[in-house]
């Protein structure tokens, strides 16, 4: 998915010289094509995530759309205050690109696992979260963000090339995207965000029984219409590669506020028991419960 991101960014930069790719000395084997094609649009800030977010804010304030590329915890928790004060508060067009969502870097351990990033990012009022479920949603997200520069968080899988959509889906913040629909009048459906579609289809045997939706664009600003989606169903199972606390399912529950809904919302999220465990992403996803 990260290669797809770079591919899309190269396409976008051909038409928009204000795009900047800023990295914290990460991206070996991924960013080279971009750097080769647009050496003046590429900056390595060095291993200094807090300052890097400040540079991004300063560049963005002068008309640049800055894509800050790094791994899970580094462009989030390490520089949380810079995101809060410098980027989100000033409403600047900086897109934080976090690669290795969830347990993508499974063997590298807890320092590299992205299990709480939604909780942090969705606490910022202006942030749009873009969490694509396959490579086509990833293309859609990058295209959307390039067209709509704003404080944003693109959360992508490390190495998956999983593709379920035949074409690039039309996406809008808060809009559920149909992934798999077989039955009419479904009562019980699955809803995912991020790169969990493949896991959901493979492990919950839903193809025969349930429809599946993905919500790639969401955030604090986009809670308004969720009730209208939710109320259509009796049961929604929400799947995410993140802790339940502060995650996507929690966000969905918050969108309902005090509105009465007969829908049961079930969370399939990563258990905190994962902390300190390592293994392949496939192995660690078994902590999804």
């Amino acid at each position, binding site marked *: 998915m990260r290669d797809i991101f770079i591919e899309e960014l190269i396409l976008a930069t051909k038409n928009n010289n204000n795009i900047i790719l800023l990295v914290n000395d990460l991206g070996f084997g991924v960013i080279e094509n971009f750097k080769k094609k647009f050496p*003046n649009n590429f*900056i390595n*800030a*060095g291993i*200094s995530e*807090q*300052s*890097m*977010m*400040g*540079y*991004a*804010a*300063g*560049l*963005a*304030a*002068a*008309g*640049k759309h800055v894509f800050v590329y790094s791994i899970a915890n580094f462009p989030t928790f390490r520089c949380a*205050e*810079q995101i809060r*004060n*410098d980027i989100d*508060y*000033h409403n600047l067009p900086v897109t934080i690109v976090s690669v290795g969502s969830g347990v993508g870097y499974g063997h590298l351990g807890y320092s590299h696992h992205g299990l709480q990033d939604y909780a942090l990012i969705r606490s910022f009022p202006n942030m749009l979260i873009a969490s694509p479920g396959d490579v086509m949603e990833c293309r859609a997200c990058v295209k959307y963000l390039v067209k709509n520069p704003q404080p944003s968080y693109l959360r992508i899988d490390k190495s998956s090339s999983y593709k379920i959509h035949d074409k690039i889906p039309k996406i809008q913040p808060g809009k559920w995207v149909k992934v798999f629909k077989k039955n009419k009048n479904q009562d019980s459906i699955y809803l995912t965000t991020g790169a969990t579609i493949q896991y959901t289809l493979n492990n919950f045997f839903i193809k025969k029984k349930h429809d599946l939706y993905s919500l790639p664009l969401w955030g604090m600003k986009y809670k308004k219409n969720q009730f209208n989606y939710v109320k259509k169903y009796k049961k929604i199972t929400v799947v995410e590669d993140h802790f339940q606390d502060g995650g996507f399912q929690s966000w969905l529950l918050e969108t309902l506020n005090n509105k009465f809904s007969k829908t049961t919302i079930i969370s399939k999220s990563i258990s905190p028991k994962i902390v300190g465990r390592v293994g392949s992403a496939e192995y660690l996803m078994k902590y999804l419960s």
Partner: protein
Amino acid sequence: MKNEFILKKIRRKILQLVYFSKASHLGSSFSCVDIIFVLYKFFIKKKNIFILSKGHACLAYYCILKEFNFISSKTLNSYGKNNSILMGHASHKVPGIIFSTGSLGHGLPYGTGRALAEKINKTNNTVFVLISDGELNEGTTWESLLFASFHKLNNLIIIVDYNKIQSIDLTENILKLEPLNSKFKSFGCITKIINGHNINQIYKSLQTKHKNKPTVIIANTVKGKGVSFLENKVLWHYRSPNKTEFKLATKELA
């Protein structure tokens, strides 16, 4: 009106606003007010950019914005009142201010990114960042200096308000910043050492840029400058004057 008279008037206004709102940071505002004044009088025209990284000295900034007609007297007098746009730290909600600060170590990275953008955009704009000596404790300050000198950001001018007092102690008792000049030089910056209350020295130091290095101006200042009993005292980082002190200080600034 002569600069000295204007600056006395501004100091009186800062004192009054701190007194009536029972606010803090009187000493910090008095130590950098002359520098901000010179910047706005001569350098911050339409295009040049100023960032007050030591956001707690915002009263000096707000009063100078009033002096140069960015904000009205009514706005300035709303300081410390409910629903005022004048936060207790520099805020971009105030006309004339582009970047909010308050958490230390944010202004310089932002200014560095901004200076790089000005280079990429091929403008001649200069970015001035005023930082406190306390901010020299922050890692982001030194990271930014590495970045700025690597990218040859000669359009970045950093002024250190070197009053040698942080919030609860003297700088030399906290992390001992000296030898400061050689530290900045070793990070690839050109340095100038000035008296941060001397208008001519401030003006001259801000006038020239190096051909390919960022400039650091070490401005030796006095915390609480202008009122004898406020000067060089840790106490006046946070303390708000009582009635007697207010009267005494007003008299000294007359």
